[in-house]
């Protein structure tokens, strides 16, 4: 056990810091991506594209992917250091094609054939391709394997008919990684195939859905006789479930996210010294202090859990189920933080950005209203608990239809 950086890790951390100083304009370092995007959207996007180029040149895109496919071949700990330093210094996200780099790319690396790697990976590296993930359907969310969107093989292509829903950034993406049913008679997990589909194909309609916070980040996507060339199948026919579950050895410690949460807590602490309730600064209220301390403790615990998982992964151990543990931990503490932010403002927490008398531009209220999206997306807490109980603790599945 040694939580310090090894000499190589320390050197790399310094390299990342120096590189950021050199490559990220001062204003960005101070304000961060979101603020820059809000003040000057075009300028910010322009720089983001440039940023992607520089990262690519530096070899820091797909940093954990094998070298043969153009990745960096970095260990989980090195990846975590890169992520951590980038977050700490307010850098834009690590690459323009976020879903492509984080999720679709690794599946292609793992399951794609040579042609597919040559065809799809460059667009992900360059940021010219945006990917979205077409998994959930109106009737298949938590029970994803019951999905119905149908694909029938006809010679050199599949004909796809059906619907996907809650597809994040479908309105921005030019590719979708799609799970379809190819064998309705097989047990449900054995009849699914994974297709990579061009979003401009005839027969695809995507409509954004308005979320409770008025944003429109996800969509419903309809498929009507959409032709998908067979060479765009990822993995074998009816083996799509394995592809969907695949995770390459990329970093999942969630440490960068704890840095964001830390910032929230720090802001909360400072604000509590200034805001008064019943005539006294809130930070003197013993109950409030207890809650902040509890949240702080949980946040610290989450970071350390992340480090433990990272170390485990670095030694080549299986950490697939651990992401359910971190997700639950993160949800608990994130929600507590947002509620504390609302507590802080009291009745003023009802005011939204743009209103008279609003405090902090309503940022705590915005966070609170965005929260359910994080909780539900990527598997609800109930499902995470099922995973922990069944796969880690070995309790038997409930009455769920496992066919």
């Amino acid at each position, binding site marked *: 056990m*040694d939580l310090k950086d090894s000499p190589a890790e320390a050197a790399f951390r310094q390299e990342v810091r120096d590189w950021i100083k050199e490559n990220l304009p001062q204003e960005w370092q101070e304000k961060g991506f979101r603020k820059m995007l809000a003040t000057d959207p075009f300028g910010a996007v322009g720089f983001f594209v440039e940023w992607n180029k520089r990262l690519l040149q530096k070899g820091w895109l797909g940093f954990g992917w094998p070298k043969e496919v153009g990745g960096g071949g970095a260990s989980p700990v090195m990846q975590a250091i890169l992520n951590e330093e980038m977050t700490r210094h307010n850098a834009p996200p690590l690459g323009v094609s976020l879903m492509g780099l984080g999720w679709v790319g690794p599946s292609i690396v793992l399951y794609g054939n040579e042609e597919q790697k040559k065809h799809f990976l460059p667009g992900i590296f360059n940021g010219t391709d945006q990917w979205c993930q077409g998994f959930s359907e109106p009737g298949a969310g938590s029970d994803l394997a019951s999905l119905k969107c149908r694909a029938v093989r006809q010679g050199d292509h599949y004909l796809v008919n059906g619907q996907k829903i809650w597809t994040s950034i479908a309105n921005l993406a030019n590719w979708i990684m799609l799970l379809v049913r190819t064998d309705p008679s097989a047990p449900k997990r054995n009849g699914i195939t994974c297709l990579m589909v061009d979003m401009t194909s005839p027969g695809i309609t995507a409509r954004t859905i308005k979320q409770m916070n008025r944003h429109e980040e996800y969509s419903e996507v309809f498929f009507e006789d959409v032709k998908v060339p067979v060479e765009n199948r990822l993995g074998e026919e009816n083996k799509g479930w394995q592809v969907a579950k695949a995770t390459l050895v990329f970093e999942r410690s969630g440490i960068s996210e704890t840095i964001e949460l830390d910032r929230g807590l720090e802001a909360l602490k400072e604000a509590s010294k200034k805001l008064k309730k019943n005539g006294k600064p809130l930070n003197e209220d013993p109950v409030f*202090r207890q809650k*902040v*301390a509890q949240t702080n403790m949980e946040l610290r615990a989450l970071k350390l859990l992340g*480090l433990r998982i*990272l170390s485990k992964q670095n030694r080549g151990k299986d950490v697939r189920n651990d992401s359910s543990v971190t997700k639950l931990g993160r949800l608990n503490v994130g929600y507590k933080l947002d509620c504390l932010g609302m507590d802080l403002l009291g009745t003023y927490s009802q005011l939204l950005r743009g209103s008279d008398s609003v405090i902090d531009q309503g940022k705590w209220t915005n966070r609170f209203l965005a929260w359910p999206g994080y909780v539900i997306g990527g598997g609800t807490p109930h499902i995470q608990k099922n995973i922990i109980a069944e796969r880690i603790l070995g*309790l038997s599945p*409930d009455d769920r239809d496992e066919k």
Partner: protein
Amino acid sequence: MDFEFSSEQEMLRNESRKFLEKTCPLEKIREIMEDKKGFAPEMWKQVSELGWPALIIPEQYGGIGMTMVDLVVVMEEMGRALFPSPFLFNLMATFALLEAGSDEQKQKYLPAIASGECVATFAFAEPGDLVDIHGVNAEARPDGDSFILNGTKMFVGYAHAASLIIVPFRTSKKGKPEDGITLFLIDPQDPGVKTTLLKGIDLTRKNCEVTFTNVKVGKERILGGKDQGGPVFKKILNKGTIALCAEMIGGAEGVFAKTVEYAKIREQFGRPIGSFQGIKHPCAETYVEIELAKGLTYYAAWAFEQDLPDVDLSVSYAKAAISDAFTRAGMDSILIHGGVGYTWECDVHLFLRRAKWSEYTLGDATYHRERIAQLMGM
């Protein structure tokens, strides 16, 4: 960066676990519970042969010279097994001697502690339920070259079985609360020292009330210098708390393992109760809570090993986390066992009792959260 235990530490864990499973099963613990001593001297001898009391004592004093992280490993196993022994208190006395003892004092006591011959304990609480330095109000009055000690110490673990008690007294009321504290080496046989065994919730651990009535001791009994005991006392509380946290993690895991095992074998409505989400989800939550508390405890031990500035904060994080988690694991276990869980014969209540004792000892979660708030600059 590596947050995993070394292979030597894993070996230490396995050996400790195997030893306790064999030597100290719950049937044996139930026998010990009924005995006034509250521990089995022959077992103490065996663990001394394994080197447990000697773990953190340097080799020059007959010890093994291992680290806080090594210690955490062994403490976890003791907690998992509900090992009834003076270990924790003996450990805190050892910390005190190591921290503040003169070479002569170290030579006198440490080898005897290392070999298991001398059982020592540490008095860290007083009536009034004050934690930390504010809880040191018993007075030591100078009397020529000697001191006259008066006052009461509460919840002194295994004082009735110890041959050495390290006791903080107030020797001066000037300055800050930590300024006027002096540690004394007390022999329970000293005239005027009275030890009364208390009847406590944790049946696997014995506590005493120790009163001092005009106890006269020479200045050679001072550990670490007059009025110098405050910082030492604080450090020992920190270190003792980490050790306790590790023991609690072991205890929480120990009782949780019983819960999960029972949830797998007990059937109702034609299937294992563990398949019901009303059982499954609290199990998953407890698992997460224990995992979170582990990182905090391991970090705190490592921070001590490295002498990092965030030791105080790390200790409070750990104690706040595991205090809540252990009690929850214990109470959930009883509920998940159903009617049988409420019986005397079912072992899980022994863990719940231990959890409650541990929760309030050395500061409960509320105390440590307030300390976190202070340390984080609220």
